[in-house]
């Protein structure tokens, strides 16, 4: 290293240091440069289309099961029973928000736009279970099921009565057959209360259908 390069090094060190110090001094003196947002007191504006916590409007929800099927990490679970008018009735709708990755597929797929992202992003809990959002309270599920079953049974009885009346109106075709039809309707009505737990959720320990088994498992564990 020659003398010229040596002196150049020194000059460069001094010049670059001065340059840097000028920049930091400008930031240090100018109070407008602060970028800190003091979070709990100040918040940033939530942008349009922000994917926050999910919310399901259970009044519009048709229990079509699309969101459950599309969810890549299976964090949505729902249970439904077929109502008297052949439509599905929700009896529980849970989202494990601790597991949700906010991909938004469920919202896109929802045919009635009942499932939507809110702007919420703050949630804290001391236990994992508390992160499951219940859109229908767990204790309401048996009640809903019982009500639906009653309605279905009533409808079946009505249908059977109507069929019986029809059969009675036509005497020439023989009463024995009509009686058979009526009996079958009655049997169907009797069967109806046993709900079809097809869309039963794997996660909901409160599922009343499997209550006895859950209790047994609990005993075993203890």
């Amino acid at each position, binding site marked *: 290293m020659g003398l010229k390069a040596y002196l150049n*090094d*020194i000059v460069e060190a001094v010049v670059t*240091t001065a340059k*840097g*110090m000028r*920049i*930091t*001094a400008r*930031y*240090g*003196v100018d*109070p407008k*440069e*602060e*970028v*800190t947002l*003091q979070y709990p007191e100040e918040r940033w504006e939530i942008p349009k289309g922000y994917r926050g916590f999910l919310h399901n409007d259970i009044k519009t929800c048709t229990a079509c099961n699309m969101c459950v099927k599309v969810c890549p990490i299976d964090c949505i679970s729902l249970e439904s029973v077929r109502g008297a008018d052949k439509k599905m009735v929700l009896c529980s709708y849970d989202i494990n928000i601790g597991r949700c990755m906010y991909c938004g597929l469920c919202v896109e797929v929802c045919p009635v736009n009942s499932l939507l992202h809110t702007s919420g992003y703050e949630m804290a809990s001391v236990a994992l279970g508390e992160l499951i959002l219940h859109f229908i309270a767990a204790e309401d599920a048996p009640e809903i099921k019982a009500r639906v079953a009653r309605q279905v049974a009533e409808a079946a009885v009505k249908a059977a009565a109507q069929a019986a009346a029809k059969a009675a109106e036509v005497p020439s075709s023989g009463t024995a057959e009509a009686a058979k039809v009526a009996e079958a309707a009655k049997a169907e009505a009797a069967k109806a209360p046993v709900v079809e737990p097809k869309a039963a959720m794997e996660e909901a320990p409160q599922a009343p259908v499997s209550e006895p088994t859950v209790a047994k498992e609990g005993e075993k564990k203890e």
Partner: protein
Amino acid sequence: MEALAISLVNAVPLLAGVPLWTVTLLLMVAVAAVILVFALTFEGVGSLVLRKVAGDIQARIGPNRVGPNGMLQFLADGVKLVLKEDIIPANADRLLFKLAPYFVFVGSFAAFVVVPFGVGLIAADLNIGIYYVMAVTSLVVIGVLLAGWASNNKWALLGGMRAAAQIVSYEIPVGMALIPAVLIAGSLSLQDIVRSQGGLLGIFGWNLFHNPFTFFSFFLYFTAAQAETNQTPFDLPEAESELVSGYNVEYSGIRFGLFFLAEFGDMFIVAALATACFLGGWNVPFFHVGTLPWIWGNLLSLGVFLTKAFAMVLIMMWVRWTLPRLRVDQLMRMSWKYLVPLTFVNLLGVSLWLLVFRGKGIPGMIASLFG
């Protein structure tokens, strides 16, 4: 100190029966306590200011939760440090581990003894003042090396080794850069050095403006001293990104607090030495402080000294948050290939200047031209 004791005994008749050495000893303890309180306060407030300056420079806010505008943050930090559990690693060398923080703290705090705070405000005006500071701050090396060794941790050991290499290397340029001030004053005593910069020339009486060589000497000293006290562009011994926290990685609680305090103490010592040797110390420009009544003269000179020293500390913080950390080889190259030769050239220049111009500086010569 003994002279002060004698005058105190003469002034207060109640003390006449007490042996002189008792009064002297009590005075010494009192002075030490005052300086310790000053040092601790400086270290506390200094840490807060450091963080605030860092916040400003990095476009952040800095601490603002404890007390009005975060003013009491340093108290919270201090309480936290004191209350934390004191952990000693199972495989550490317990004796050395416990000893190391004291070496570091004593090394940094003992230098406060010769800091000339004012006309008469100096704990001990040693006639070897600068030499004493250089010697006693070397104790820090031993402490840091001990801490690194006794922790039985690879990061700590690496940090301690780096610290030893760094402090030993940079002691030479620091000493060489301070000698011009000694040459001009003709004394190693810091009070004499400060007095030699007084007079009617005002700020042009400072050693900084004495001649071109002393001007460069100041910057060389400032750079080398920052490196010697492990300030940020040269804080390799505790480089967070490589060594986690360096030599103090295994320390917690009050033992870590001592390292922390020593670091800030060193910062003040560097600023105080720069002020005393190059920036006129406690001299009030165009004014002779010695002619004032004792108390006012001391208060005024203390204010002037602290203003200058704190300004230097602020500049150190500014540098600290500006420059990125050097590499080990760059650090060594900077010391041995740049700072050491430059300080030698400077020393030679100052010596020749003093020989040729019979000890007069440029401002002095200009002043004598006009009578």
